[in-house]
């Protein structure tokens, strides 16, 4: 199973800042291993963020996102205590959902 994300969601004034760390190999499909074999592509394709039950970010990603991806977003209209749910799905169908609370 995929490793947990680390999600930080914090109010700064009336803006909620959401930082997400994901644990993923993000293989491009172009790298060769020590034995010279191509390592198959394995990368996150879809990322969604829901805050307070509403979809705020709907993203798609390709192979050029760095290994162990890091993303930052901002939103208005959130408040401390709102639940943040982040979800990703990769090209092999692996997925992960984690949540945090806006602080």
């Amino acid at each position, binding site marked *: 199973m995929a490793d947990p994300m680390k999600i*930080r969601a914090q109010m700064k004034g009336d803006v909620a800042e959401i930082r997400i760390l994901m644990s993923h190999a993000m293989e491009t499909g172009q790298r060769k291993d020590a034995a010279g074999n191509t390592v198959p592509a394995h990368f996150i394709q879809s990322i969604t963020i*829901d805050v307070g039950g509403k979809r705020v970010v709907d993203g798609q990603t390709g192979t050029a996102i*760095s290994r162990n991806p890091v993303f930052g977003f901002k939103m208005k209209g959130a408040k401390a205590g709102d639940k943040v749910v982040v979800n990703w799905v990769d090209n092999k169908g692996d997925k992960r959902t984690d949540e945090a609370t806006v602080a």
Partner: protein
Amino acid sequence: MEMNQTRRIVLRGAGSIGALSALIMAGVLKPTAAYAADWNKAAFEAKDTPAALKGLGAASAAESKDLVLKVPDIAENGAVVPVDVISNIPNTTSIAILVDKNPTALSAQFSFANGALPEVSARIKMGQTSLVKAVAKAGDKFYIAQKECKVTVGGCGG
């Protein structure tokens, strides 16, 4: 203290299929969100920027100074290049990041709704010195901004 709380919450994170189903049933997630079926294959597998833009429907994107793209002039490491995009164009609903000289140009695309500000920070891979591009959609129009980022050799050269 705040960090520890966050950590505990993450550790309780719903990682299992069961928990995921529970979220779907609770209406937190739309079932479609759990699958990457709507991944824009044409755009993401395009080899060059023009083809990727076409895949995004953004072939006619116009340059805009209100689209702010922050990337380093010189990347410390091409494996992890920080990119920030902020759109000051009214009614921006999505932002895409592209790298001209990567094997596939499109890195990511994000759509914003329900209060999300039209900005994103991400870290991307760059195989070589290249123009980095940001594309924003506002209404039914597309806007573009670009900046060069140099990728260098470093370390002990091994």
